[in-house]
């Protein structure tokens, strides 16, 4: 059918374009946009891809997912969305297959003892599966739209009058959070500028437009001011499976200073940033960009004799974090394993 072939090639073109955009780097894309683009692409694959059984669809999605994550490993939202879609497929298949909602898909001691044998096969074809999966993905897209607002709605519970809040860099989630609280409360914000890109400056400008008393200071002064701070509220790039963070460079310093002064560290992050990976050897989370910002190329004489690195991300261990505020509410870092088991299936942790 010429129509299908056309659609097929158009689809692979779109995937190629997406992969190239991811690999290109350049402007740091907003995580929510990346998540939305990934989901739309996956929805197109489900709608137009050539598959007849759930097993084939899952293999197709997994293959495309591997290609997309390999293009830019530090963009973990891509992998997370792929895993969510795989879980959706499993659930829809289970529902059509007649399995009860309750049956736990997770590995557990209980299952080890009571199971009668082989695993799910995913080989029975069900015509309504395509429509069901697409509808579930649409629901997920709608959920994605509302995450920042859901997080911002919880602001009044955490920020009180006359408090001094500290943050670092520019996080749109934290910006929305603070703006929502500023409507009813009066407080001060100290923003660490987060060298070398100094995104803290942009954050300070935006906050002051809402008449929030903002101060910008350099990263070196974080520890010095920490004794006056009541709370630290930050955003993050990724939340790892053990409750740790991959956040913008400078966050670990902030977290250590907060721990030293026993200041609560609150992380505002939507659930699509939760990744089932653990920090280990294969961690390709590190992203290095041009050292131009650290030491400009005009210093040519020195450059020949030294090594200059400009890492973008930092690892923050779970012991330093007090609370995660996400679109589903507030949670402790030790509870992350539970949230993960609700979002993803253990067979999908390794894409």
């Amino acid at each position, binding site marked *: 059918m010429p129509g299908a072939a056309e659609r097929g090639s158009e689809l692979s073109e779109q995937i190629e374009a997406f992969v190239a955009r991811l690999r290109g780097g350049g402007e740091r894309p907003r995580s929510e946009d990346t998540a939305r683009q990934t989901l739309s692409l996956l929805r197109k694959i489900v709608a137009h891809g050539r598959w007849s059984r759930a097993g084939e669809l899952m293999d197709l999605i997994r293959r495309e997912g591997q290609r997309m994550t390999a293009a830019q490993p530090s963009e973990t939202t891509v992998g997370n969305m792929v895993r969510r879609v795989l879980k959706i497929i499993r659930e829809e298949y289970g529902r059509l297959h007649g399995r009860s909602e309750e049956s736990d898909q997770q*590995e557990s*001691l209980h299952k080890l003892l009571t*199971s*009668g044998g082989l695993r799910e096969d995913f080989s029975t074809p069900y015509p309504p599966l395509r429509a069901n999966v697409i509808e579930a993905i649409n629901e997920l897209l709608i959920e994605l739209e509302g995450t920042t607002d859901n997080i911002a709605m919880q602001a009044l519970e955490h920020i009180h009058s006359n408090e001094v809040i500290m943050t670092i860099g520019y996080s749109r989630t934290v910006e929305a959070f603070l703006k929502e609280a500023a409507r009813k409360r009066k407080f001060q914000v100290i923003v660490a500028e987060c060298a070398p890109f100094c995104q803290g400056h942009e954050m300070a400008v935006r906050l002051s437009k809402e008449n929030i008393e903002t101060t910008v200071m350099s990263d070196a002064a974080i520890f010095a001011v920490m004794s006056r701070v009541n709370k630290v509220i930050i955003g993050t790039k990724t939340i790892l499976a053990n409750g740790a963070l991959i956040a913008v460079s400078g966050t670990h310093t902030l977290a250590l200073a907060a721990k030293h002064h026993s200041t609560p560290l609150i992380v505002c992050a939507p659930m699509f940033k939760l990744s089932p990976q653990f920090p280990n*050897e294969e961690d390709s989370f590190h992203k290095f960009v041009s050292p131009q910002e650290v030491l400009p190329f005009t210093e040519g004489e020195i450059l020949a004799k030294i090594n200059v690195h400009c890492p973008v991300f930092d690892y923050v261990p779970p012991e330093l974090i007090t609370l995660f505020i996400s679109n589903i509410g507030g949670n402790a870092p030790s*509870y992350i*394993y539970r949230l993960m088991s609700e979002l993803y299936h*253990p067979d999908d942790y390794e894409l």
Partner: protein
Amino acid sequence: LEDARNLIETFRAQLRDDPDVASAVAAIRALLGFLKQDRGETIQGLRSSLLAAIDTLSRVDSSVAVSSGGELFLRFISLTSLEYSDYSKCKEIMIERGEIFLRKVSLSRNKIAKLCHPFIRDGARILTHAYSRVVLRVLEAAVEAKKRFSVYVTESQPDQAGQKMAKALRKLNIPVTVILDAAVGYIMEKVDLVLVGAEGVVESGGIINKIGTNQIAVCAKAQNKPFYVVAESFKFVRLFPLNQQDVPDKFKYKADTLKTNQNLTEEHPWIDYTSPSLITLLFTDLGVLTPSAVSDELIKLYL
């Protein structure tokens, strides 16, 4: 009495024929054999004869592993009997599921090795304690993945189990150094991570392991080194010790000592309890778990 002797003989034979088998698995296999030849007619009768059988086994080997294996088997019987009311059908299903369970469990060490070896970086220096077959399997998998690392093993008195571990590691061509138990604090600054096995994993997420493990965990915490535990899921036991005293005496001392000696204050315990705050991650065949996730698993099974 005849049955009891047969049971003990089966258990001992398993451990003799396959030195690599975990004692909990040997206990479960022996109990399954006992179940097959049980001539009772009711679930209640079966339960009481099984309780007697587990008691017999723990008089031979009073370790945590045998106890957790026994409890797991009892739970397995209760869960299956809830589904089928007809006793003979129930017994058939139990035997079938028992075989499947034993087959799955034999794969658990490989699953754990697959999960754990990515955490060993190239050039890592690992500290381990006493002799653990799971740790050995993990290190074997790391060698197969072409990683280069070196290992420090504690001598682990009073039975010098560390020497046995060192010998096994040398056979895999891993550079290994045996250190004194007292030298753990000295060596901790040189190591990158600590990897130990466990005889039992308790409800709080802590572990029960060969004496000396708690010391190593405390030193590792003080120097910010990750402390990893590898254990199969059948070692999860329904115990919640708050301190070292809370661990029952029958686990701390060997079965023979308990029988002959009334005054235990003169004896040295063989195991200690490490609290969950000192453990970074647990690698089990149910996945990589943080210590807080362990109690969730146990609740799912027992409640």
